[in-house]
């Protein structure tokens, strides 16, 4: 399936998240527009005879009507201009199609930087809202907010904004997939979906498994719908069909024990790993081993199926170094329920 088509499927699976963000933006556009109307500079601007509708224009004097509320509508020109700019920024986000939630990474570029760029671009919704709020309350700083309207990345977001974080779909070459760098973004209700192209490490997202984060590696775009339903942060990688990647889910909402939360559907052979870009075979092996050990915890409950054999089927051999490491890592992650 071409990448373009897969991205569309991902976007439709994420519809719930997109809608949430979009309707907040739509509402903000209305709010700022209404504010602009209310604060329209009264000097010399004749009232709009249609403002109250066609009936009113025949039986009312719109000028007198508007005059009732004229005195409290003044705003200094600078604040008004800022309000206009904020409106423009919000309106252009409102008008953009769902492709605005997609960021593409060229070969060799940094995944982290691309995610920051994408979120910074979408975060302009928050930046513009902040500018509008400051301007309408007269608390803006002269020339102090222009940046907010072009780039407003996650570190600038507050808790409420992180709770409404825009989802981001990243088209990424497999060789760029250094997932550990994404941890800093997994906060609030952030959803990240990596649409992986070409050769890729088999289990890169294992590094992101922490107690509150929904982590999914899959080859089925429909699987991603669960991200939209999940309340907390979530990250997913969509691999091409037939790729050798592992498929698993870590779902914090599935239960309190790791056994309930981990489901490994597919765990590939470890034998023939090769470096992908700058990601060494050892790093890949490390991730796979970690997944294997997590899957064994999952396998304690017989729910974790494996389509691909031996790695998942073994019992707990905690003498192996990878398992010891895994156990240590998990302890660090504060998963006290490992047992």
């Amino acid at each position, binding site marked *: 399936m071409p990448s373009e088509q897969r991205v569309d499927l991902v976007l439709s699976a994420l519809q719930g998240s997109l809608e*949430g963000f979009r309707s907040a933006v739509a*509402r903000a556009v209305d709010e700022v*527009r209404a504010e602009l109307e209310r604060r329209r500079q009264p000097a010399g601007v004749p009232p709009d005879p249609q403002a109250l509708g066609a009936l009113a224009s025949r039986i009312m004097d719109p000028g007198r009507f508007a005059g009732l509320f004229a005195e409290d509508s003044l705003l200094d020109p600078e604040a008004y201009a800022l309000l206009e700019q904020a409106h423009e920024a919000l309106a252009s986000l*409102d008008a953009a199609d769902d492709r605005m939630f997609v960021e593409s990474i060229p070969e060799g570029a940094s995944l982290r930087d691309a995610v920051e760029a994408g979120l910074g671009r979408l975060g302009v*919704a928050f930046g513009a809202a902040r500018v509008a709020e400051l301007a*309408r309350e007269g608390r803006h700083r002269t020339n102090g907010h222009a940046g907010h309207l072009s780039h407003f990345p996650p570190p600038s977001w507050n*808790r409420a904004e992180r709770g*409404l974080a825009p989802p981001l779909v990243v088209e990424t070459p497999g060789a760029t997939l250094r997932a550990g760098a994404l941890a800093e973004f997994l906060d609030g209700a952030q959803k990240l979906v990596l649409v992986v192209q070409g050769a890729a490490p088999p289990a890169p997202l294992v590094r992101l498994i922490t107690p509150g984060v929904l982590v999914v590696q899959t080859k089925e775009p429909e699987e991603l719908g669960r991200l939209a339903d999940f309340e907390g942060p979530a990250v997913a990688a969509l691999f091409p069909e037939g790729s050798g990647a592992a498929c698993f889910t870590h779902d914090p909402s599935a239960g309190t024990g790791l056994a309930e939360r981990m489901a490994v559907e597919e765990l590939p052979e470890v034998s023939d790993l090769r470096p992908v870009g700058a990601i060494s075979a050892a790093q890949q092996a490390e991730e796979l081993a970690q997944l294997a050990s997590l899957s064994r915890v999952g396998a304690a409950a017989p729910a974790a199926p494996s389509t691909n054999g031996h790695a998942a089927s073994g019992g707990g051999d905690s003498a192996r170094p990878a398992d010891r490491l895994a156990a240590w890592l998990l302890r660090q992650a504060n998963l006290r329920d490992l047992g």
Partner: protein
Amino acid sequence: MSTATCSLLRMSVEEDRSFELDDYAGPVARWCPGCGDHSVLAASQRLLREEQLAPEKTVFVSGIGCSGRFPHHLGTYGFHGIHGRALPLATGVKLHRPDLNVFAVMGDGDCASIGAGHWVHAVRYNTDMVALMLDNHIYGLTKKQTSPTTPQGYRTNTQPHGSFLPSLNPLTATLGITNASFVAQTAEWIPQHLQATLRAAYRHRGFAFVRVLQRCPHYTLSMFIDAVRDPDKIELLVHEDGVQVDGLEKIYEHVRPHDPSDLDFARRLAEEDSDPEHPIRLGVFFRDPSRAVYDVIRRVPSRSAGEKVELLNRELDRHAI
């Protein structure tokens, strides 16, 4: 939070706040000393602090009667409506603003007499809110008239030879309504139980109906005197999905484990509660969080003015000639 109402502009200046009891305090309450309303008010304020509900995102709606003054004494938004009609107002608030925390406070006459029609339907709508029926078995504000929950034979100004009919049982009534999802009873003179019941009600998603037994210091003190003095007159319904207060069973020794998911049994327990010889049962009679919640079912996407104008133009084209 509802996407229909969250404002990016407001969010942008939101800071992490924490709330103290003072944040929920309004002007000093003027109820009579000894009125059970004081106790419910204090428990509500503690609940708000415990759950850290933003005062501006919380609305208490009331009807008329002594309980009607309830919102006036809180630091939240309030709507002191008309007699018997707190529930439609509260439904309107929640339907339009699912992001708000909604509480409806009613008296016994308010809820079960003049507002009985709304009560039935509010239970069925199962809109996400807490509904408190402050039941002192009498019309207090208007000076001692019979209410639907006045015990048979009790003398009032409108039925001076004793109330004619057996009192209405609000628990069986509520439990009989299709789609009821939370029915509990508590008593104003056991603050820990009251508190725990309010918490369970608040945390329930759906219409949480709580009957609070309470004394009117002027007119119905005698009705409750035995139950207040003698813990044997109380039976606690306990369950991990209901109300459990550590240590309370040391005072109230009648404890009955009751799984609130069992509707048939809940109805039986409630029916027995009509019997004046029977201990008063306090706790969660019934809870089913899977019942349809009206404001969730009715949630609609938010549309911008521009989108609406575009849709409207399309609709007008359908009528074009």
